[in-house]
């Protein structure tokens, strides 16, 4: 029996689940996810729906920013495109949800590609500015295209349904989000280990070298924008189902920045980065909420002292991650795993 994990060919090296141990844990996790609504409260389920939506969105952003190295500050706007596209397709065009959902992704992908065109010339900070423009242009369009989007008053979303499942029911929506989050994770994993995924990474690491060895930089950048926005569109469509009413205020630049922060915390360029980041973010948010509301109701006279705790802690966490853990929680997890692998007989 080999005293460790040894790969003898490329096939085993690229395998997604390398040990039976990983498979067992994954099955346990999936079972937990499936059974969650049985013991979870209504509140817990609505949080888990938000988590699922954020994971899908973060995978999208991770492909673009983490793997391809193109900073995007307009991710929430692309979610908005998906949200409105899906709701309009169901409500006004009368399409069934199962058709409208992928089409919402496709519309968002198209819009993403249009705003991705400047990436041919722009890099880094300049591209970030261009994506901020996308954020504002899309938000402005939503606000002013009254006849289509309902303008500033927002839009009532018709609940989608697939067969016996109606997504104004939070249990049904939970399972839909859960399945799509898993699908998004698998899709991301498979994209990044394919030819396109390697091209993305090559562009991120050194675009000039990538171009020299024959990667069509512009094409792959656009592709990355499209895939990323597709994920955002799907996440947005789910968010619309969750909120039941959408306004431009659900898709502001603050949201875009939050998603970027989640990706940084989780680990840009790691598949699990999106999941860890979202998990960490939501857990921290809940803890802070409990802490501040408890302090608020215990010491109501000093309420104004505690309200900024959240902002301060979030700022502190992001700065700390950038300084101490720039590769995010995913990298930290890898280090911890490596440490325990040889424990207690380390070198």
């Amino acid at each position, binding site marked *: 029996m080999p005293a460790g994990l040894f790969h003898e060919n490329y096939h085993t090296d690229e395998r997604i689940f390398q040990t039976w141990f990983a498979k067992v844990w994954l099955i346990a996790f999936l079972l937990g996810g499936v059974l969650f609504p049985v013991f979870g*409260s*209504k*509140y817990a389920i*609505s*949080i888990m729906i*938000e988590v699922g939506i954020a994971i899908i969105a973060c995978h999208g952003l991770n492909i673009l920013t983490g793997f391809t190295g193109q900073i995007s500050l307009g991710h929430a706007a692309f979610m908005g495109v998906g949200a409105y596209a899906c709701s309009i397709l169901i409500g006004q065009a009368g399409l069934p949800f199962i058709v409208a959902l992928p089409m919402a992704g496709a519309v968002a992908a198209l819009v993403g590609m249009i705003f991705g065109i400047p990436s041919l010339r722009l890099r880094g900070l300049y591209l970030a500015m261009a994506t901020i423009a996308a954020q504002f242009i899309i938000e402005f369009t939503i*606000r002013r295209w009254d006849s289509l989007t309902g*303008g*500033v*008053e*927002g839009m*009532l979303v018709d609940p989608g349904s697939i067969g016996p499942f109606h997504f*104004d029911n939070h249990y049904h929506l939970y399972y839909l989000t859960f399945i799509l989050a898993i699908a998004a994770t698998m899709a991301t994993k498979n994209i990044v280990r394919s030819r396109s995924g390697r091209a993305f990474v090559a562009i991120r690491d050194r675009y000039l070298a990538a171009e020299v060895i024959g990667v069509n930089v512009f094409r792959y950048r656009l592709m990355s924008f499209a895939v990323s926005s597709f994920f955002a569109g799907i996440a947005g469509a789910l968010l619309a189902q969750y*909120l*039941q*009413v*959408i*306004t431009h*205020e*659900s898709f*502001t630049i*603050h*949201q875009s920045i939050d998603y970027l922060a989640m990706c940084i915390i989780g680990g840009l360029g790691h598949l699990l980065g999106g999941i860890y980041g979202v998990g960490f973010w939501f857990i921290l*948010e809940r803890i802070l*909420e409990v*802490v*501040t*509301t*408890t*302090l*608020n*109701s*215990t010491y*109501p*006279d000093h*309420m*104004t002292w505690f*309200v*900024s705790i*959240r*902002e301060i802690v979030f700022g502190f966490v992001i700065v700390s991650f950038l300084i101490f853990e720039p590769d995010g929680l995913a990298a930290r997890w890898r280090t911890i795993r490596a440490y325990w692998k040889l424990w207690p007989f380390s070198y």
Partner: protein
Amino acid sequence: MKKWKIGVVVAAVVLAFGLGPAATHAVAADVIKWGVLIDLSGPTSDWGKNQVKGQLDATRWLNEHGGINGKKLKLLVIDDGYKVPRGVAGYNRLVDSENVVGLYIQSTGTTMTLRKKIVSDGVVTIAASFTSKFQNPAKTPFSFFVSPSYATMGRIALRWIKDTWDDSSRNPKICFLYPDNKYGRDILKVCKDYAKKIGVDVGPDQVINWPTKDATVQLMNMKRYNPDWAYITSTAMNGAVILKNARSLGIKTKFISNIRNFEETLITLSGGASEGTYGVHPIAPYGAPVPGMKKVVQSHESWHPGEMGTNVYVEGWVNILCASQALRLADKAGDLTPVGIRKAFEQFKDFKTGGLAPPLTFTSTDHRASMAAKIYTIKDNRMIAVSDWIELPKTMEYFGK
């Protein structure tokens, strides 16, 4: 590095133990939980902090004076930073986890986003967003607010402008100044229609977005039309910039502020530029000579000595006085459920708050609390009423628009 980690663990333990006892004695029997979803850290936090201060003080006063039929009222305050996603999360927590019987929601965006959910959850809400859209119980059966709507107050201002106009050779001219959002655009259709009807000429709109740093361009544009009046829809923090710019440009137009702009902080923030401007407001300014003001001023002076009292603080009191009255009625009827509280609200007939707000009435088909407001002006840094109550008839013409 190790020391640092130990520090974190120690801090976590201390925090956990420190909060443990606080959490356990927080909930007791005979407590009625009421939620407050408000901005304490975002762009409207100056307003939110005064509002929540008023609500907390009113609750404290209420609990010291018998509570709700002997039961204590407990406010659960959640800060949403004026962001919709956080507002929605806070709403879920209050309604699904804390099981509040009703709640107060500040942000228009959050209220609009939640409007379908509020109906399906059946939770009574008091809104800080006075949009007429929440006044038709056929559409929003659980929404209430304690004032005339923004559009009604706009109409009251127009009515007053027309009534005090003495140049018979022409109509008075007005421009609307507002930020490009739901709140800013809320009154436009109704007010422009009403202006046309009563003979007030409306000039080109000036969009002044938040956060307002400079409004010179818009004011110069407005100056070309040279209106007699300009109606500002904004908040004090942003509106103060408009007034300061107008003063330095030497604009002769008279300004009239809506309720969210016209508060005591406007006086301090505008550095004197608000002197002589007007405002339309249904809530009595802090310290006004009305019978209900005595307890408000006493509470504020003993619990917050040295701080400035504002009409936003008074509005906080009005919100709690109304909510507590509805809870009292529902509790007496033995039906302390959202439906019971809604019914209790709908029994309000000329409910008086001692002059803090105009008498309030709700019925099962009409959630327009009142149609009256006063016009104030700022003189020597104080708000002085220049009109008596101006009340518009409760016709169906602009109902829910």
